[in-house]
């Protein structure tokens, strides 16, 4: 019997515990790959291209954040800052016609799958030139012709869609695989478990990839999850792995290996990629659930700085040339902002467009 004096505690208490000066890190990063870029079959140019992509994602969002704070556009804004190695390493590892779907922290995924900075920024601004014609906003970036099926807003809601895309690929026997990205919070949605069972049973070429960034909104992973996230795979007999998501080469290496295996045996994988979200859940998040010191620990292993150091160590490009690339990215982002600000908002008729495929659709009045 519990002591009647003690108050029941349900969710484990996080921040109030005495740390004696120790920094409490919410996600533990596994070792990065020891292989060199050459051993991974990458060229110096590949490294530079990866860097350019990650830097673009970072600067796009930093500028978007400024514009949001200036009140230039409304809606939600969930930033991917800190997680860029995952989108970049994955897209370099997969074939261009492999399918990707994710949740609402989707700007990086859009950019790496061909949403131009102009189309991305215009979507944030709610303009017709946006990648989803201004109908979706921040949470619904997509570029379906490039096999990026979009960002989705209901936590866990897109997970069965990813499995369905994989189902159709298997049905059509087209050799494509599907990577479905979800956050650590979405792991607890029942639908994940329903479709993990079906994907394993039906041998669907589908990767379930958890971007464990330490927090489900403001609840740290140790406060919302019992046991290790990756071990959820065991219940379904699904292959699993944990990766360091702060190192783009690690993500590239494993995602490539796994993709090749899935293309061969059509069996799903459950992958936990550990990373860290630098910004709040969304722009309105006061971040009282974590310490500044914790954030600084992860910023020490920033994926973009890490790649930059590696690039210079391997003399992949001169400092001057890389600075030129950075400047070019910065200019593209600034041009995108100017473009989005001056772009036309949707015409009133657009309100009724895209509801149905049928052109003469009837709307109830």
């Amino acid at each position, binding site marked *: 019997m519990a002591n009647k004096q003690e108050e029941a505690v349900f969710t484990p208490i996080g921040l109030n515990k005495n740390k004696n000066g120790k920094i409490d890190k919410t996600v533990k990063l596994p070792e990065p790959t020891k292989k060199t870029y050459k051993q991974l079959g990458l060229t110096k140019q590949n490294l530079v291209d990866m860097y350019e992509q990650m830097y673009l994602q970072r600067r796009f969002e930093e500028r978007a954040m400024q514009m949001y704070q200036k009140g230039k556009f409304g809606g939600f804004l969930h930033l991917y800052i800190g997680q860029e190695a995952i989108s970049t390493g994955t897209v370099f590892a997969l074939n261009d016609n492999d399918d990707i779907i994710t949740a609402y922290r989707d700007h990086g995924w859009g950019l790496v799958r061909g949403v131009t900075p102009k189309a991305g920024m215009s979507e944030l601004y709610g303009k017709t030139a946006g990648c989803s014609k201004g109908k979706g906003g921040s949470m619904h970036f997509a570029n*379906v012709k490039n096999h990026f099926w*979009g960002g989705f807003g209901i936590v866990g*809601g897109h997970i069965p*869609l990813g*499995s369905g895309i994989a189902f159709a690929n298997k*049905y059509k026997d087209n050799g494509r695989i599907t990577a479905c990205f979800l956050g650590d919070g979405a792991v607890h949605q029942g*639908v994940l478990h329903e479709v993990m069972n*079906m994907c394993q049973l039906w041998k669907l070429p589908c990767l379930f990839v958890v971007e464990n960034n330490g927090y489900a909104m403001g609840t740290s992973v140790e406060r919302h999850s019992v046991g290790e996230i990756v071990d959820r795979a065991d219940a379904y007999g699904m292959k699993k792995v944990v990766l360091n998501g702060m190192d783009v080469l690690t993500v590239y290496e494993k995602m490539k290996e796994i993709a090749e295996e899935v293309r061969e045996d059509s069996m799903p994988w459950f992958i936990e990629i550990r990373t860290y979200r630098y910004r709040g859940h969304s722009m309105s998040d006061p971040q009282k659930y974590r310490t500044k010191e914790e954030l600084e620990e992860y910023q020490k292993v920033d994926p973009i700085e890490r790649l930059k150091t590696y690039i210079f160590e391997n003399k992949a490009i001169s400092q001057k040339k890389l600075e030129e690339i950075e400047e070019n990215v910065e200019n593209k982002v600034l041009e995108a902002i100017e473009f989005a600000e001056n772009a036309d908002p949707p015409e009133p008729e657009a309100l009724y467009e895209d509801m149905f495929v049928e052109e003469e659709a*009837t709307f109830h009045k």
Partner: protein
Amino acid sequence: MAELQFRQAVREALDEEMERDENVFVMGEEVAEYNGAYKATEGLLDKYGFRRMIDTPISELGFAGIGVGAAMNGLRPVVEFMTFNFAVLAADQIINHATKVRYMLGGQVKVPIVFRGPNGSAGQLGATHSVAYDSMYAHFPGLKVIQPSEPADVKGLLKSAIRDDDPVIFMESEQMYGLKGEVPDDEDFLIPIGKAKVKREGSDVTVVAHGKMYHVAKQAAAQLEKDDVDVELIDIRTVKPLDIETIISSVKKTNRCVVVDEAHPFGGVAAEIGYLIHRDAFDYLDAPVARVTLPDVNAPFAKNLFDLWLPSAKNVIEAVKTVTYNS
């Protein structure tokens, strides 16, 4: 023409559309090896194999979502729910995803999916197996909602639903699966979605009903004929888009209307039709529109209470008498 049971009309529509289009497949609980919980998919596994007839675990949310994703990626799924009472578990995929993906991605995808299965009550099955969800789905933009009452309508409308490029809810009834009717055997026999049918012409009062309630209303109309009340009976067949024009032109002729709906009263099909008649035919009405619905109460088990709960021909006759001031 052939005489088919309601379930055979479902089966024939599925068979013909699977034959016609390689991308059509059927997924749901007990659809393949078991031949369908209500035998609506009998023989289709033998003909099409396990690639196109897919037995699912009892995971409504999961397989509904797999259906939506497969539709986005080029297939035309027919997702069967053993009853729409279980589809509530899949509501996130139907309501938040199937209806919204195309719009929020600015038209980049289409979702040609049919969710089908029995809707409403089927005898003494208790509170959780007896709900009619048609008006709930009709509430959401992006869904077409069909609930036919006779085998010919089933076949023609299900074929149209499968060929439709947008999400369709297709509702049947456990109690109607054995009902027989003449069905055209033309493989391109299609009934357009969104068209009501005047199934009995009359001059005294318009009665609007669909699904199982059509048969209740039909029974009432036959009784009323003996009392010299001439009922015009309209089967809306499609709840959404609603063919209000057919109803309005009938009401302009009869000047009275009763709507029979196997749903609870608040915000249902009957409420909506009542409003539209009021808006479009106010000056033609000789009496307020009456409705016959379930009470605002859950389905009871006990036989006597259940019979009290479900709209009956007697209830319809009483409503008709009220609007014709014959009570």
